[in-house]
């Protein structure tokens, strides 16, 4: 196999954070090369380099034996490199045919010709799809087909699939693999990013494993097992960042959730958290953890499920209901959902419980509020220019402390934290862990969502693992290992196969309409 594409020593930083640290990667003609690693390992960043979307600071790219620089996505597309992202880049209001030939639409469209050519592309892939249909009306799996057809409408030599099967049922995934087999046979080089290791082992010729922006190694399904690969993906830097509270006694059950459901994202989740207990919710990004938290908090409407607090059923239809019932949420997206960045620390801190700082007439009791916020700021060791400073003037860690202070002030019994230390420096992380311990020690029931496994292990009394909208298992402290967590998070369940299949027309020759 001759190398089609070779990357050597690719380095890229984003604002001081090294996302890629001298990564090597090569792809041969007619090869399916899987790129594996945990969330944030740098896989997608590397493929954005291949697609010309970002330019590396160091390293070289060789394509068909010629050294080159990819200045923009168009340069990559002109060479025959196509990257199919997780988020599909389609125009929902245009037809299938228009989308397939998006890059080369003529000023005046000859519909007959365009539709004929689109049909020809789909035929080559072995799919039947009405090319006149509006893309927005198609199922996700069908949209994916359009995206692939778009790539194949030109002379394509390299295709990158970034988690193509994440949204597909296993039947549709199988069809995608059939397409990949055809492409492979015709000499196209294929990069395949996926968290589903079983399917990777089925279709990949080689596998490159990355961790923390660096290359761990290259292997193949013939020479390694799934366990070997998981071991390669997992790091070994256990840290002593977790201050265990001296005595945290775990009491009666506070939060009980039964059979929570919403679409494909949350499919029958049941869990419980006791007073003084910190329960982790682990799994991969997109496994339904954030959605579960939002359902418990009433931020989204649930299709089914029952929530009990202290054994009593509560009706939660909005965040207001949740806050009144005593549930707090520190959202994943601090800047858009957690804090009002333009407003002061004072205003942000008291937002979830204004009653103590407002008099009967609705006037704010400024001195009382200021004192409350100042005291909380000291308790949380908040570094700021005072309660009047806008939250936007704070560092990430201190912004997060303001969001935490909001729930310290609101004083509910249940606090859900979604990625509480994302974008927070190491020092502030330790402080936030301490605060979470403090909340638990005060008898609150804590649910923590995190994609950093060491964080879950360091902080939680037990860790529930989610995948594809379901709970896949529980890890107790004796079982804490990233291998075990990933094994639960990345193996396919039987239930997934029973999921409603997306109506993807296959090789049958019946027109869909």
């Amino acid at each position, binding site marked *: 196999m001759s190398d089609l594409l070779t990357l050597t020593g690719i380095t890229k930083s984003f604002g001081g954070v090294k996302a890629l640290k001298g990564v090597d990667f090569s792809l041969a003609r007619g090869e399916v090369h899987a790129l594996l690693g945990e969330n944030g390992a740098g896989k997608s960043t590397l493929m954005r380099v291949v697609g010309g979307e970002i330019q590396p600071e160091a390293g070289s790219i060789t394509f068909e034996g010629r050294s080159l620089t990819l200045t923009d996505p168009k340069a990559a597309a002109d060479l025959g490199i196509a990257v199919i992202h997780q988020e599909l880049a389609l125009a929902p209001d245009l037809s299938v045919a228009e989308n397939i030939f998006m890059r080369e639409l003529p000023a005046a469209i000859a519909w007959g010709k365009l539709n004929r050519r689109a049909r020809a592309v789909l035929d080559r892939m072995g799919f039947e799809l009405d090319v006149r249909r509006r893309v927005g009306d198609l199922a996700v799996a069908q949209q994916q087909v359009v995206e692939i057809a778009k790539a194949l409408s030109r002379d394509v030599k390299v295709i990158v699939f970034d988690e193509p099967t994440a949204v597909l049922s296993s039947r549709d995934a199988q069809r995608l693999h059939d397409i990949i087999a055809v492409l492979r046979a015709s000499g196209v080089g294929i990069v395949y990013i996926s968290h589903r290791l079983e399917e990777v082992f089925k279709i990949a010729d080689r596998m490159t494993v990355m961790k923390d922006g660096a290359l761990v190694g290259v292997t193949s399904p013939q020479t390694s097992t799934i366990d070997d690969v998981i071991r390669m993906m997992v790091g070994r830097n256990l840290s002593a960042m977790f201050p265990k509270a001296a005595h945290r006694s775990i009491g009666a059950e506070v939060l009980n959730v039964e059979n929570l459901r919403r679409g494909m994202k949350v499919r029958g989740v049941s869990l419980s958290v006791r007073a003084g207990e910190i329960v982790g919710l682990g799994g991969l990004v997109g496994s339904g953890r954030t959605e579960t938290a939002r359902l418990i908090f009433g931020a989204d409407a649930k299709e089914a499920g029952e929530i009990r607090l202290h054994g009593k059923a509560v009706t939660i239809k909005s965040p207001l209901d949740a806050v009144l019932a005593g549930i707090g949420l520190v959202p994943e997206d601090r800047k858009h*959902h*957690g804090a009002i960045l333009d407003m002061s620390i004072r205003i942000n801190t008291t937002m979830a419980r204004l009653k103590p700082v407002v008099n009967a007439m609705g006037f704010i009791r*400024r001195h009382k509020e200021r004192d409350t916020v100042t005291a909380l700021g000291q308790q949380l060791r908040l570094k700021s220019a005072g309660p009047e400073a806008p939250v936007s003037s704070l560092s990430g860690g201190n912004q997060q402390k303001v969001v935490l202070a909001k729930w310290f002030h609101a004083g509910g019994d249940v606090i859900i934290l979604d990625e509480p230390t994302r974008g927070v420096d190491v020092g502030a992380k330790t402080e936030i862990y301490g605060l979470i311990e403090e909340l638990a020690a005060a008898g609150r029931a804590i649910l923590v969502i995190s994609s950093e496994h060491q964080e879950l292990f360091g902080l939680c009394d037990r860790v529930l693992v989610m995948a594809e909208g379901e709970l896949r298992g529980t890890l107790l402290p004796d079982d804490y290992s990233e291998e075990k967590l990933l094994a639960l998070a990345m193996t396919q369940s039987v239930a997934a196969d029973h999921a409603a299949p997306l109506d993807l027309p296959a090789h049958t020759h019946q027109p869909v309409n």
Partner: protein
Amino acid sequence: MTQSTTVAPVAAPRRSFDAGEFFRRYGTVCIFLVLVLGASFESNAFLSDRNIMNVLRQISGTGIMAVGMLFVILTGGIDLSVGSILALGSVVSAIAIDAHGTGAGVGISVGAGALCGLVTGVLVAYAGLPPFVITLAAMTAVRGFALIVSDGQPIMMDDDASTVITNFGSGFFLGIPDPVWLMALVFVVAGVVLGFTKFGRLVKAIGSNREAVRLSGIAVPRYVMAVYVISGALAALAGVITTSRTGVGSGVVGVGAELNVIAAVVIGGASLMGGKGGVINTLLGALVMGVIANIMNLVGVPGYNQQVCMGAIIVIAMLLQHGSRWFKR
């Protein structure tokens, strides 16, 4: 008074004078002062007591509506129906004062405006429909109501019944026209509400980051609805002032008034994205609009040219305020 003064963080690298920040904050004041200065050079009559009172009286309606509009814009919304509600307020007040006396008449009129605001408010806040379209629909429908109620005719009041209201319209207290006092009262109350109450805080917070406020357990729709009620009530109040000045209720007044009102609020530095804006700057914005119209009249700019000039001056005001972007780069 109402703006929370932000303490500059020590670490942030800042020049001693940040022109962009200065204009963002004091742009409206600067524009106002420059206009007044220019106007007094252009015409000797401009600074006369009589002319100043005239300007103030003319902006009293716009100013009152601008307060309601400020609340709506702070939440990130817009209310295009205020001109039509003004007309409804004018018609209803003339009829109701004639029938039920001044106090009840004014109350009924303001209530009718509030009701209009309630309908748009419910549609925007609870049904989640876009405020631009909903208030545009209300603009048409309410104008129609005003014309139906008045049968398309000016509504004359009985002389006895209208004495109190027309005295208010043409009267002075301490040398200042009565409607100007009413406008001042509205501004003071609004300033207190925005600066010192839970309601005012939440209105601003919703415009700043609606989702964060919702996820703090605040019943956001309730507050969004309320600002449209306030805007409707104040627009009808402006209609009462119109009636008080002419002694006639009319369904054709206030056509295009919403644009002047929005211009006043925006010249006052409010952001149409929500969250930013204050009462004092809104008053200045209304004054700027009034002064521009006045000076063009004094200097004798023809009517059509006035419209072009007005448009140009609004653009210049915007360029000055948003200059911060270019100063920073």
